[in-house]
């Protein structure tokens, strides 16, 4: 590791005790984000990617809880902090962007007030200085006539503009890491492109690392440096973005890539992975993907694979263990 690790997640396990047994939403997930890098976390619904992001920000709703594992921010443990300590970290060190810009902003308060409130909570400055900073933030995210729009209410902005305001809010206190959960899913395609570009630009300028949680592989391809593919609460594959997309090692990743329609060439049939992701209370023994895997063999059904080196990435698949690491 050449760059220092900003965020380190080790063996994270998030559980939901219900009366029918404990559901494991995130199962032994380990990942790292270096300062200034963009890590994409991709997966289908139920894979546990949002849950991982929520656990890192510390916003897990009870009865969900972190059952075991560690989350370290710049070496310091943050998963076991009391509420008021975590509050200081949230916003100042870790910012958050959620999917729905309509509900991320308080409809009753002007946009400027929400920005100023966030700034003043975390940074020592006067009200006037905070206000100036808020205007500058709105300009940075591309809101025209920022000095006037700062007094508008959220409903007076369009969807794309609102998401820009949310980004401004996330960056307001200069956090080192932003957790973005499906930030572009609710937006039109053309707006998506704008928001992605904006996020990339700002994070590069501010040196902010981003954990980008999404189901859209295209967004990951454009934005991320590295990507983790999640399946049934576990990481199936993690590595540099070009590697994982062009040379996937895990059969799930291969299936996923083949299932995405692309405009480069027309295929008759898309790659189909039969069946569907197992429900949390019915995760198979051994490798969670084994019932659907076209390359399954005996070991997969019995022993659960951990992440193993595969080319320049890591994949949790016994196929990879057979071959020695080669490109």
């Amino acid at each position, binding site marked *: 590791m050449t760059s220092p690790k900003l965020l380190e997640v080790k063996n994270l396990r998030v559980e939901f005790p219900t009366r029918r047994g404990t559901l494991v939403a995130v199962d032994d997930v380990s990942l790292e984000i270096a300062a200034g890098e963009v890590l994409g976390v991709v997966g*289908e*619904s139920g894979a546990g990617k949002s849950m991982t992001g929520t656990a890192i920000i510390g916003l897990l709703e009870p009865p969900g809880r972190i059952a075991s594992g560690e989350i370290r921010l710049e070496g310091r443990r943050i998963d076991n902090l009391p509420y008021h300590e975590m509050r200081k970290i949230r916003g100042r060190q870790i910012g958050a962007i959620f999917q729905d810009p309509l509900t991320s902003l308080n409809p009753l308060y002007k946009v400027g007030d929400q920005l100023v409130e966030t700034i003043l909570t975390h940074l020592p400055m006067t009200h006037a200085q905070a206000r100036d900073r808020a205007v500058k933030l709105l300009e940075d995210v591309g809101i025209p006539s920022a000095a006037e729009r700062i007094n508008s209410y959220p409903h007076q902005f*369009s*969807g*794309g*503009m609102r998401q820009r305001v949310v980004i401004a809010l996330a960056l307001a206190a200069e956090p080192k890491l932003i957790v973005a959960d499906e930030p572009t899913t609710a937006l*039109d*395609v*053309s*707006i*998506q*492109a*704008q928001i*992605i570009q904006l996020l990339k630009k700002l994070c590069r300028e501010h040196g902010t690392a981003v954990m980008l949680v999404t*189901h*859209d*592989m*295209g*967004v990951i*391809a*454009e934005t991320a440096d590295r990507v983790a593919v999640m399946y049934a609460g576990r990481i199936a594959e993690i590595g540099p973005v*070009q590697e994982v*997309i062009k040379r996937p090692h895990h059969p799930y990743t291969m*299936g*996923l890539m*083949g*299932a*995405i*329609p*692309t*405009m*480069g*060439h*027309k*295929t*008759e*049939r*898309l*790659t*189909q*992975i*039969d069946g*569907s*992701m197992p429900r949390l209370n019915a995760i198979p023994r051994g490798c969670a993907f084994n019932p659907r895997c076209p390359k399954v063999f005996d070991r997969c059904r019995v022993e659960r694979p951990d992440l193993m080196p595969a080319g320049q990435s890591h994949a949790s698949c016994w196929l990879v263990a057979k071959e020695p690491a080669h490109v």
Partner: protein
Amino acid sequence: MSKPTRTRDFSVPMLTVTNLKRVFDVSAPLLNRLLEGKGRSIVRAVDGVNFSIKAGETFSLVGESGCGKSTVARLIVGLYEPSDGSINFEGVEIGSATDRAKHPDIQGRMQMIFQDPYASLNPRWRVGDIVAEPLRFRKLLSGNAEIEKRVGELLAQVGLSPLDARKYPHEFSGGQRQRISIARALAGEPEFLVCDEPTSALDVSVQAQILNLMKDLQRRLGLTYLFISHNLAVVYHVSDKVGVMYLGRLVEWADTQTLFDRPLHPYTRMLLDAIPDLDMTGRARTPVAGEVPSPLNPPPGCSFHPRCPLANERCKREVPKAIPVEGGAVACHAVEENRLPPWKTQAAA
């Protein structure tokens, strides 16, 4: 299948839509308007759309939110009545509700698949009853045993088990529910299927299954699809022809390959540019500007002009008319005036 296919005249398009319009009155209640001095507000959801679909092909309508594609789908299928224009199915005019009522057999040949797999099945009905409903209502079969058998066949055809008929919708996943919706649509033995974003609410791998299934069914049963989507990659994969809509108007339509290789309308080009690049060929992007304006207050003339890099004075005043081009049509002054710059073709992966 069980019935012989009808003899079809392939020289005449199956569905022709001419100058289709639909206006929604979204004015505030009378009292509010009087007190606040506001006028009426109307939304021209569909503003003069023309296209035709041939038997056996897949025609897609693509566009962003508010463009009117879903409204067109609902107009064709009869959920809304057009404010103006005509809808012609195999030579029969079925635009207005009265026309449609005169031809119930034509209504029976059309079916629709909806976007939300969770809201498109009645949660209180068993799957078997849901799928059997078109059979029962149209009296295509009689006797419970016959109906049960046919339902089993339909479920098997979409990749489910006949035993699933006894279950309730909530026992199925999103992808499976879409399959049930497809089975229900097929029960009436339709020829024409309108699909409104059928895979938008599904995961990528499930989407692949459903798209493959739909292609198989089209081949086997000779179906014609009108496919509505906002996802250009999906549209590229399934369609024979594509129409691009913006704020209620059809700005361009063409054969799929032609549209994607040589898009003409600036909005089409902008859309194609905006798609995240999975192949990461690092192509340069033209800057995208602005957002879709509110349909309550569309810009005058060509509604795309505020965002168009090629807009001139004429564009601000005059609504462009559709100009026939190779394999389709485009409505753009810049094209008519030959001001269109060449388009960089995308490199194949």
